[in-house]
């Protein structure tokens, strides 16, 4: 089965869809809160990063220092949950945490205001004007969030494999479409794809071990699995620091040979993965 990433605006009726999917397919459903709970064992990164985002741009330097640990830890928590495929993740922009893989299907649900406003009024017990203001502010926050965290505009339809409009299609129909995507042969998680997820998970575990350790947190070291060994990519290090980094990496479960290649990597390797993926696509 595929792994679905559902991205949506605030109060877009996605919970109804998730309940429908769970009932029809028995799929495992994950929210952002589930992942935040997982990473809270390493500190309050999620709250800190949200607080920093709402502050003025002068806090940007500090924000950029907490962004990486947040992304790495969230990615680790997410990958652990989706290793077994057959999962739906319905956080706001969780699809940007992981690179493109054939069975990772990124869906954006678009709901018109005519649908969202009454639902918001009911949920918040407020008048129409307040509901509209709430939606506007929440949407704006999400856009800023994705721009700061991942450098992407989440409103861009090209970021998704499929955009589905609730303005015309019924909830039942959309649930049917998502069910179909989960079971689509073309998007099935093959043995090779699962192996790629495992490699990614192992590399992320190494990155996570480096960001939770205060000695290496700010070094911004990327990990990659190549031919069964871990390749670390980061800044030039003194011997003592290098030893610490190598020691932390070797202590991660499943890690064998480790090699350190100095030099700055692309941003969290996502672009690199995307390029590799694109070059394999048939026209």
């Amino acid at each position, binding site marked *: 089965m595929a792994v679905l990433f559902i991205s949506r605006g605030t109060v877009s009726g996605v919970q109804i869809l998730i309940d429908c999917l769970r009932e029809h397919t028995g799929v495992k459903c994950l929210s952002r809160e589930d992942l935040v709970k997982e990473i809270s064992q390493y500190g309050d990164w999620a709250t800190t990063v949200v607080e920093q985002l709402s502050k003025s741009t002068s806090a940007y330097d500090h924000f950029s220092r907490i962004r990486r640990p947040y992304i790495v830890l969230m990615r680790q928590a997410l990958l652990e949950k989706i290793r077994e495929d057959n999962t739906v993740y319905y956080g706001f922009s969780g699809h940007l945490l992981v690179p493109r893989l054939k069975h990772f299907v990124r869906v954006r649900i678009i709901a018109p205001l005519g649908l969202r406003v009454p639902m918001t009024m009911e949920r918040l017990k407020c008048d129409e004007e307040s509901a509209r203001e709430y939606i506007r502010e929440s949407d704006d926050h999400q856009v800023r969030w994705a721009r700061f965290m991942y450098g992407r505009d989440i409103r861009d339809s090209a970021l998704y494999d499929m955009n589905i409009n609730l303005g015309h299609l019924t909830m039942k129909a959309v649930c049917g479409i998502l069910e179909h*995507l989960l079971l689509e042969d073309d998007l099935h998680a093959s043995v090779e794809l699962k192996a790629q997820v495992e490699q990614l998970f192992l590399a992320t575990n190494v990155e996570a071990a480096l960001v939770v350790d205060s000695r290496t947190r700010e070094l911004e070291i990327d990990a990659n699995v190549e031919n069964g060994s871990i390749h670390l990519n980061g800044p030039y290090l003194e011997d003592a620091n290098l030893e610490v980094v190598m020691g932390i990496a070797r202590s991660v479960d499943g890690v064998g040979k480790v090699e350190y290649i100095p030099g700055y990597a692309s941003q969290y390797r996502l672009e690199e993965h995307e390029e590799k993926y694109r070059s394999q696509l048939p026209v």
Partner: protein
Amino acid sequence: MPIITISRGTFSGGQSLAECIAQKLGYRCLGREVLVEAARQYGVSDEKLSDALTKRPGILEYLTRERKHYLACIRAALCKEAKEGNLVYHGHAGHLLLRGVPDVLRVRVVANMEFRIRALTDHHNVTREQAMQYIKKMDEGRVRWTKFLYHADWQDPALYDVVINLDHMSLSGACETVCHIANMEQFKATSKWQKAMDDLALSSHLIAIVANDKNISGNVEIEADGGVVTIRGTVESLFDADKVRMIVRKEPGVKDIDSQMRVRLVGVPADAIPWEG
């Protein structure tokens, strides 16, 4: 299932997707053929019709009605085909030409620039640079004319029911998915759909034939509702208003006419004359 419209950019894989869907569902698949039929039926050159759908509007065009006339011809030809249902239309602006018709499945296909450049350079003898420029120019033209005619952003995903990215999903996977959606209960033909389709077919045909008559001066809007035709807009003389009514009356399917045209007097704004013909 009544109609599936496929909207796509140049060389985005939309035509191949449309053909696959049509073959799988046993539907007819139309694209440029609609233009040829419109040209034949209304005596307009198909180049002019094609330009009306693809060329970006010039500054002076905001003052003319020529393009609206051509679009009415295309819409009328499309409605004639679409009335029978079971159709995949991958020509330009299907979702806008059939605006107002319920339960039309509006699909948009997108692909990244690299995918599109490769598709173009593989089939035509052009350089990468030329391909990129051509695609950008075509996209820009479509964005501009959609804004000009429909006040809508062609790239806005809210205009469509589903937007499929062929950058990631294979053609066969996308084809399978659209067929699955098309077979859903929501897209079965209903009497509401049939009436909306008949009304649009009649009104666009009437607009096309009235605009085609070079002896009539004016800007006429026509709506049909179950055979009752309402004519609004401004004409240059009472004689023109009579001619419009005569043309409309003799067309099959017209049961009654509600004429609300105004006559424009030189130097007097049209809305200052409360005249009904």
